């Protein structure tokens, strides 16, 4: 028994110095098999032993830096005598089983916390089994900062239609098995966050309170990076939404509020943030213009897909429609004096037609204008600045840039765009109309006579 306690306390010490992983390799102590019956039976002859054990444990505890620690093992052992029983249930039928192994491996177990460190109301209980109702564990006793953050979050607010507050600490962190977030088994590890958050936010349909977003996220490039590539440094729920202080996107303090989105994405995509801020969209964003697109307007939110994915809003054949949401929007065109009809003129070109039929190699908006650092044609660094055009067009049409750079692009009026073409087009139109009209007339007259002849002959 003594030796057992010693091992446990030592493991507790190790956990405190933070060698969590090494701990897993420590050989587990053999389980003491004490049934409920045995526990309830009058204790015989073990008193002396127990006293020594308590003394030894107390002495050992003095070595532990956190001097607050009580004689963890002793109380744990006492609790586990009952709670290690799988069949132990409360009146409502909920299991009261506590896995000793999980407990010991949890961050609290490894730090030497005992059952009563959290279930504080048990400290004073002398009679066992104790009453069924225990006070709710108050994590804030130690984790004050976290609790303060949670209090400001949406999770502290009552869900619509409910009176009491939203989720408890345990809904995200788990109960006896709580481990630090770095641990891949932690419920709050980036790899497991979709499941943890999805426990509440997974709904088939997109709803108001973030319902269904987890489902979208699992399909997204970030979600797949977590689930398929196993990249724990890919964006998970808390990367963008924050952890304890998670707030609705409408809240300006939320990292997902419109003004914060570029910075939030820029945590990881810093090069893109730099390009974006240099471009025309980024500069207008800095001016505080609300209509200017931020990351999510082109890439989507939870369902962000790789640009190579056909369903992505920024896939080669889809990007024109995405840009057109603003650049063919009459209201925005009027408000910001944008050059309108970009989409229609593009769709009229061969590039646009091929793109509409799903040809990804053909030029689209970004092939000429660039993407994150789009600049106006007046900017000498812009891809569509007159001096840069030969190079830009030449990417696909080698040697053709010189003449192409003088051409008019995105002109809707055919007379202005290409007068000769316009005249030829009109001429062909009337020619076709006249020829087809004469064909129709001739066929009509011919058919009339021939059918009549045939009819008479058959008579």
């Amino acid at each position, binding site marked *: 028994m003594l030796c057992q306690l010693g091992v446990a306390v030592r493991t507790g010490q190790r956990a405190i110095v933070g060698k969590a992983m090494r701990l897993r390799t420590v050989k587990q102590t053999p389980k003491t098999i004490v049934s409920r019956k045995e526990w309830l039976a009058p204790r015989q002859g073990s008193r002396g032993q127990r006293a020594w054990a308590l003394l030894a444990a107390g002495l050992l505890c003095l070595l532990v830096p956190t001097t607050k620690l009580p004689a963890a093992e002793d109380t744990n052992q006492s609790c586990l005598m009952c709670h290690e029983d799988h069949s132990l249930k409360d009146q409502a039928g909920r299991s009261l089983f506590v896995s000793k192994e999980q407990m010991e491996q949890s961050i609290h177990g490894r730090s030497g916390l005992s059952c009563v460190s959290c279930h504080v109301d048990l400290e004073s209980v002398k009679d066992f089994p104790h009453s069924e109702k225990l006070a709710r564990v108050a994590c804030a006793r130690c984790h004050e900062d976290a609790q303060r953050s949670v209090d400001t979050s949406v999770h502290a607010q009552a869900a619509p239609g409910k009176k009491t507050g939203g989720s408890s600490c345990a809904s995200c962190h788990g109960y006896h098995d709580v481990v630090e977030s770095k641990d891949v088994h932690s419920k709050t590890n980036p790899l497991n966050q979709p499941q943890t958050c999805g426990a509440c936010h997974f709904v088939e349909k997109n709803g108001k309170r973030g319902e269904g977003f987890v489902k979208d996220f699992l399909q997204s490039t970030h979600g797949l990076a977590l689930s398929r590539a196993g990249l724990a440094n890919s964006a998970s729920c808390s990367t963008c939404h924050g952890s304890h202080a998670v707030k609705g996107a409408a809240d300006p303090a939320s990292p997902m509020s419109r003004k914060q989105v570029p910075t939030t994405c820029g945590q990881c995509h810093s090069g893109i943030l730099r390009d974006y801020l240099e471009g025309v969209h980024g500069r207008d964003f800095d001016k505080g213009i609300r209509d200017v697109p931020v990351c999510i307007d082109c890439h989507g939110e939870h369902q962000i897909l790789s640009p190579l994915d056909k369903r992505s809003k920024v896939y080669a054949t889809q990007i024109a429609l995405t840009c057109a949401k603003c650049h063919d929007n009459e209201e925005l065109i009027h408000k910001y004096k944008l050059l309108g009809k970009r989409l229609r003129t593009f769709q009229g070109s061969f590039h646009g037609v091929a793109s509409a039929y799903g040809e990804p190699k053909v030029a689209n908006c970004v092939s000429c204008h660039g993407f994150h650092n789009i600049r106006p044609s007046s900017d000498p660094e812009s891809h569509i600045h007159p001096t840069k055009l030969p190079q830009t067009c030449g990417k696909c049409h080698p040697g*053709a840039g010189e*003449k192409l750079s003088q051409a*008019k692009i995105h002109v809707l009026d055919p007379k202005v765009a290409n007068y000769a*073409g316009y005249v030829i087009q009109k001429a062909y139109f009337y020619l076709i109309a006249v*020829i087809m009209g004469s*064909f129709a007339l*001739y066929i009509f*007259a*011919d058919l009339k006579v*021939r059918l009549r002849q045939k009819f008479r002959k058959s008579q």
Partner: protein
Amino acid sequence: MNRNRSPLDPSRAVLPEDSLASQADRLISDDEVFVRMTRSERLQHITLIICFVLLVLTGLPLLLDPSVWLKKLFFFETSFAWRGWIHRAAGAGLIGLSVFHLFYIVFTQRGREVFWALMPKLKDVTDALQSFGHNLGVTGWLHQRGICREFFDRHPSWLFEAPPRYGRYNFIEKFEYLAVLWGNVVMIVSGFFLWAINLSFRLFPLWVYDVFKIIHSYEAILAFLAIIIWHLYNVHLTPEVFPMSRVWLDGKITGHDLRTRHPLEYEAILEQRRLKSSNHRDTASQP
């Protein structure tokens, strides 16, 4: 012709078919088979059909609005690229055919004959008017009602009482041949510059390239409509041959069809045979 419109000339009431038939019975029987299209011509025609259909199928989507059902045809990633490759391959086939045909009409006896026979003459214009006027029958109706009677009495040809009598190729066929010649030249030239895109960008400004594109598109529409309206009517739907003239498959035409549809050619052959037989009789009777 069996409309008793005008009693002016009693001979008009006699059917020319019957009179001709009675004269020529001995020299050209109705069952006799003549060659209208040689094997080479039929093969050229079939090649043209294949190329044309492929070109239309792979080219037309570019002119149409990419609607939902049309997009479904382009279901795999390289389908649009395939569209282009098939279109250019068929275009190359058409160029090859055109070159072959050029050699055919220059270097073969039959080719030269056919080519010159297909060249339009003034008679084809009057034939077209005559045919249309005759079918419409408006002038005859006016004359019957006594409207402009004086004008029609002075110019009886305006009554269009008889349908035109055609030679080996009627104005419809000549028109189609010329349309194919013209269309081919336009499509091949414009298509070449669209194909060699980087060459044309180096040679011309963009608007010239766009003009080629416009010409190629509209000429394609013209050709497509001409084929499905004009050609398909004249070789499939017209009651004369419905459901289909088989000339393009076997190249044959019977003496009867020759007599009724190409009377001038029929008469020319008849004349030839008459001369031949009289010469023969002469030479036979000399000794």
